[in-house]
């Protein structure tokens, strides 16, 4: 037996999809349904606790369900290296997997000696038409200490980012978790947890568990105003204690706002990318778009006059002038 066990609970059905992970979800699912035929290798990257391992395991579970005859192997860099060190059979065994899922690729940078062997393994899988999925905490271009050829192999298929889920997705994650556990919470408390500047899904779920634990162990109902204090140790920027003074509170409010609008921005970016569709290798020629259909006008280089009549005359350039003069 090579590789690591796959948690059967981590499926595509138990994964909450939102704009921050929709592409990663769709590509992983496609790879599992038709191994080797698209997005090969599929490279998922994103911060800790955002669902990369969940998607790898979901792909493994779905593939085993649809193609029970196909060998599926899920492993991490550390495990793979340990197995290589134990014996030569591991190399052959890994190459026999029709779907090869490799997690925590970021640790490869510290293992320069095994990089040629991973290159050979990937090359073998791709030549044989096997599906390869890898997960890493950063995109290929930000991976230092990796052989260029190996990097090129890893990023030669589809590279997809998973970012922090927006407010709606965080709400959905909490609701699904509550449903799965068969428990309920005051909706205002759920909303408070969802709005906290918590960095990842794992910590979001930990926050929910903590609130549930307080209710259970102290035999009382948690009120929404105390959620921030209860979960201060999970909230970004408040590690020094809650409330950490006005500065901490301010950062938290703006950070929460940023997290909420990020999901909407991602939808705009997806639309922009769909429109741009630059020819492969020709991104430099991507055309600038303006949603309103007008091109930005040249910016005059003089300061803004304060005479209302003058301002009226200069209407068309107001925004650009303000940006130049004051931003």
């Amino acid at each position, binding site marked *: 037996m090579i590789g690591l066990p796959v948690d059967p609970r981590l499926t595509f059905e138990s994964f909450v999809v939102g704009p921050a992970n929709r592409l990663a979800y769709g590509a992983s699912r496609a790879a599992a349904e038709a191994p080797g035929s698209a997005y090969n290798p599929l490279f998922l990257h994103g911060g800790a606790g955002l669902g990369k391992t969940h998607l790898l395991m979901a792909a493994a579970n779905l593939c085993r369900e649809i193609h029970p005859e196909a060998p599926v192997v899920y492993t991490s860099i550390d495990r793979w290296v340990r197995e290589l060190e134990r014996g030569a059979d591991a190399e052959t065994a890994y190459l026999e997997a029709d779907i090869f899922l490799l997690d925590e690729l970021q640790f490869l940078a510290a293992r320069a000696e095994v990089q040629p062997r991973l290159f050979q393994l990937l090359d073998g899988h791709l030549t044989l038409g096997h599906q390869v999925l890898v997960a890493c905490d950063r995109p290929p271009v930000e991976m230092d200490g990796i052989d260029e050829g190996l990097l090129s192999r890893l990023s030669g298929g589809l590279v997809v*980012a998973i*970012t922090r889920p927006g407010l709606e997705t965080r709400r959905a994650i909490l609701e699904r978790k509550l449903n799965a556990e068969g428990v309920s919470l005051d909706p205002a408390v759920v909303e408070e947890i969802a709005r906290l500047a918590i960095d990842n899904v794992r910590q979001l779920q930990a926050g929910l568990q903590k609130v549930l634990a307080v209710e259970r162990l102290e035999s009382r109902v948690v009120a929404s105003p105390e959620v921030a204090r209860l979960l201060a140790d999970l909230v970004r920027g408040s590690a020094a204690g809650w409330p950490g003074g006005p500065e901490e509170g*301010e*950062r938290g*409010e*703006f950070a*929460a*706002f*940023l997290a*909420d*609008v*990020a999901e*909407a*921005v*991602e*939808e*705009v*970016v*997806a*639309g*922009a*990318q*769909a*429109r*741009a*569709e*630059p020819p492969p290798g020709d991104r430099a020629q*991507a*055309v*600038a*778009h*303006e*949603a*309103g259909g*007008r091109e*930005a006008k040249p910016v005059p280089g003089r300061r803004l006059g*304060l005479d*209302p009549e003058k*301002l*009226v005359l200069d*209407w*068309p350039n*107001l*925004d650009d002038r*303000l*940006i130049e003069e*004051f*931003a």
Partner: protein
Amino acid sequence: MSRVSYSTREIVCKIVYYGPGRSGKTTNLQYIYSQVPSERKGEMVSLATETDRTLFFDFLPLDLGRISGFQTRLQLYTVPGQVYYNATRKLVLQGADGIVFVADSQASLVPENLASLRNLHENLLEQGMDLRDIPLVLQYNKRDLPNILTVEELEDELNFREVPSHPATALRGEGVFDTLRAISEAVLRRLAQRMGARAVAERGS
């Protein structure tokens, strides 16, 4: 006018805070300004009279940072609420992607709120824009004052189109970010829809 530039990877949206004089538009921007880390905000520009009433407008550029590889910026403006500055209001409204209407919750100020809403409608129409086509959020400000209408009463009086609304006490920051969040998401989602629709249209042509 919003700009989405694929080549420079930039998104810029303009949000205008509208409403009658002294309803708290500038206070909204001042609170936002106070909450934003210094590296994220440009200088807030207020062109005000000696008595602290907004003469022309306030302008707060807000850098949301790089999201999905795109530098995202919001430009927040207020208009002067006083009746005689309508030329400036039209000027600031030009190219707005979304509007926050800041209403004063005091019962005695319903006529001023209504007049300002009418003025907004007229100014938009004059520029070929329809209030129904632009994201709008109502804010019922000054909830800490006595003699205010209930939120339900304000909804009946002002919210004809049943747009999102938020109670607020901008002086204390209450409801300020809820309002900004609502209008920002509405503006960005509308922009995303338009980008998506254009992509489909361009593929079809």
